[in-house]
């Protein structure tokens, strides 16, 4: 109820203490109770006691909602009557929705690859700098990671802002540059030719994620044993050859992990689109369409169908990532 920042902080601290402490206490009590059982049963039951709460939480907060979502996607706007596959039929007959799927594809194709390439480039180049410049360069690239999506969108909103009235000064970076070069002012985020407006939004995400890619890839590069690089050098390999044939294969697992992590992030992209364009001018993505359907149009059925489509798209990526994970553990 109170807006007093001090009380909020106290509230937060109390929540943390109770949350963490409560969880610890729960495990301690369960452990103690199981410990009272005879030795054989103690050993048999204990693993389940420890894994049980986690399984319960996942079931209640993930599996149950997932199943309900799939069920609701076959019901109408208020989840009262069954409508069969109607929500899906409507979605796939809607030209806008097909455009949305295409946009998601664009994001998927560009953001993970773009972030990995930029991150790798910075990591490799910064690796050759002295310690202090390296740290500064990396900090600057990493800094956007600390900015929320909404914050980043607000910043980039100023980059893309355009004023059209005669005599108004351009407050947007891009428009200030283009009009000073003699071009007419244009509304950047409404240019659908070549999906330019989508690309302008995608740049924001690359800007945000390149730092993340850089940090992981940089540590991976530093983990490449020097002797392998030196051996290649002695054998007369060029720097480019060394990079692609010696360094990259050794950091490949990290590249994959970074790529897939960003890929999953991109599948859920919402904030940037919602803040920058609200999905107008053909820039919507699945998560935005879902939000609009559920919270603005109140159509639970179609919103659920959108999420199921998204879920189906994510599952293969998840499976691939789990496999990678297992492979790495096996090594």
């Amino acid at each position: 109820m109170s807006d007093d920042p001090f009380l909020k902080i106290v509230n937060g601290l109390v929540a943390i203490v109770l949350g963490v402490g409560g969880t610890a206490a729960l495990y301690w009590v369960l452990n103690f109770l199981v410990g009272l059982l005879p030795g054989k049963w103690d050993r048999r039951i204990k693993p389940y006691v420890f894994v049980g709460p986690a399984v319960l939480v996942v079931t209640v907060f993930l599996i149950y909602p997932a199943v309900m979502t799939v069920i609701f996607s076959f019901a109408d706007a208020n989840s009262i009557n069954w409508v069969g596959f109607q929500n899906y039929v409507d979605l796939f007959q809607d030209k806008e929705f097909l455009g949305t799927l295409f946009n998601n594809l664009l994001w998927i194709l560009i953001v993970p690859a773009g972030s990995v390439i930029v991150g790798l480039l910075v990591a490799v180049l910064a690796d050759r700098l002295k310690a202090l410049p390296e740290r500064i360069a990396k900090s600057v690239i990493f800094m956007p990671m600390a900015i929320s999506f909404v914050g980043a969108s607000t910043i980039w909103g100023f980059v893309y802002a355009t004023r059209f009235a005669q005599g108004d000064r351009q407050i947007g970076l891009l428009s200030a540059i283009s009009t000073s070069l003699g071009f007419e002012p244009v509304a950047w985020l409404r240019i659908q030719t070549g999906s330019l407006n989508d690309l302008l939004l995608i740049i924001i995400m690359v800007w945000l994620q390149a730092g993340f890619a850089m940090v992981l890839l940089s540590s991976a590069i530093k983990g490449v044993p020097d002797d392998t690089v030196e051996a290649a050098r002695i054998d007369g390999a060029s720097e480019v050859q060394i990079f692609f044939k010696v360094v990259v294969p050794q950091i490949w697992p990290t590249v994959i992990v970074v790529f897939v992590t960003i890929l999953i992030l991109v599948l859920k992209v919402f904030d940037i689109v919602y803040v920058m364009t609200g999905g107008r001018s053909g820039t919507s993505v699945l998560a935005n369409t879902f939000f609009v359907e559920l919270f603005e149009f109140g159509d639970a059925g179609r919103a659920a169908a959108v999420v199921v489509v998204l879920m189906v798209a994510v599952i293969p990526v998840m499976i691939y990532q789990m496999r990678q994970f297992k492979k790495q553990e096996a090594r």
Partner: protein
Amino acid sequence: MEGAIPMHVRKWQIGAVAAGLLAVTGCGVPGGGGGNDAGETKDGDGSIQILGAIPEGEAVGLNAALKTFTDETGIKVTYTPSTDFTTEIRTKVKGGDAPDIALFPQPGLVGDLTASGDTLPLDDMIDVDKLDDSMIPGLMDSVTIDDKTYGVPIRVSMKSLVWTPKNFEQSGYKTPTTWDELMSLQDQIIAKGQTPWCLGAEAGADTGWVFTDWVEEIVLRQEGPEFYDKWTSHEIPFNDPKIVKAIETMGDIINKPKNVRGGADGTLSEPFGDSPLPLFTDPPGCEMHRQANFITTFFPKDVQKDLAGNVDVFALPGDMKGGYEGTPVLGAGDMATAFTNDTDVVKLMEFFAKPDFGAEWAKSGGWLSPSVKFDNSNYSDPMTGEIAKLLQDADTFRFDGSDLMPAAVGAGTFWSEMNAYVGGEKSAQEAADAIEESWRG
């Protein structure tokens, strides 16, 4: 060593992804039933619960008015503001926990809850004929269903206002009284080398409502209120030629060279709250701005200190050639609807229905009386009194049509398609077709 960080990342990320993806719930509301009959008036228990969408801060005036009621009758009244009124009132009504009275911010929901048999007709409780006489013409139509009255208007706002710089008439312009005069005024302003309109529709995710307001104003003037009602209730399709024509009339205003500051592109990128500001520059960046009465809160602080001394306002004229004869007004309002029939509620409804209801509210500001008989000297600010006069002079009142349409249209495609039309991405016909297509059910 290379595996350490990624492994860690992977764990949180799988959880986060899944949680983000799956956080969907749809909650069903079973339908109600039964005919609408207020039945016998029971004895009151001396207290009334009211639920409404008017937020705490704005409700100061309402609470002052309710206090007067309590002082007069001894009946205790508790007003509870709801930040999610639409959902809350449905949930409460379906759960058998309805308040005694609810203040609905738009009549569409009253219609829904009446269709499901949950609201009580006021005809058996108060003298509704008197209401028809004292309220702004057309206002009662919105809560009249099958010849029964389901709400008492307690507050209105007015959208059909055109704001001008204070020196407007001194610059040689005459306040237009008909639509055609308004159109020729545009040419007059352009001829003088000035810009007629300031128009900004950018509102983040809500961009487009300024355009839909314009279309509604034009439909109301071009085709009249009966047609307007059929349009908002979907008795005629959205892509009816007359609606397409109304959209094009708006397009003619926006796309007319030098008519709107910044042109069509400018209207799409100018935030609606900033768009009236050029009225107050010297010389003015534009001469006219059409926006509801709330826009004064976006005016510069020094202008707000003395509104009547810094800005002029006139009603968006009607009497369109071949269209509706008279000046219609577009607006919004709160309607008091009863869910309990007892002597207390009857007394409070009678109190709401009195033409002088709200004198306390008028003093605290942010309120316009729905009654044509209200004494405008009660308003603390002369500008509000002026607007109230324009409202009382209106020939008919209609609610914002986009509020009456299903959200997928009224807060969805109607907005987005108007953006696409103004942006030149679609023709009026294509936009209207797409909206019609999206009108589910």
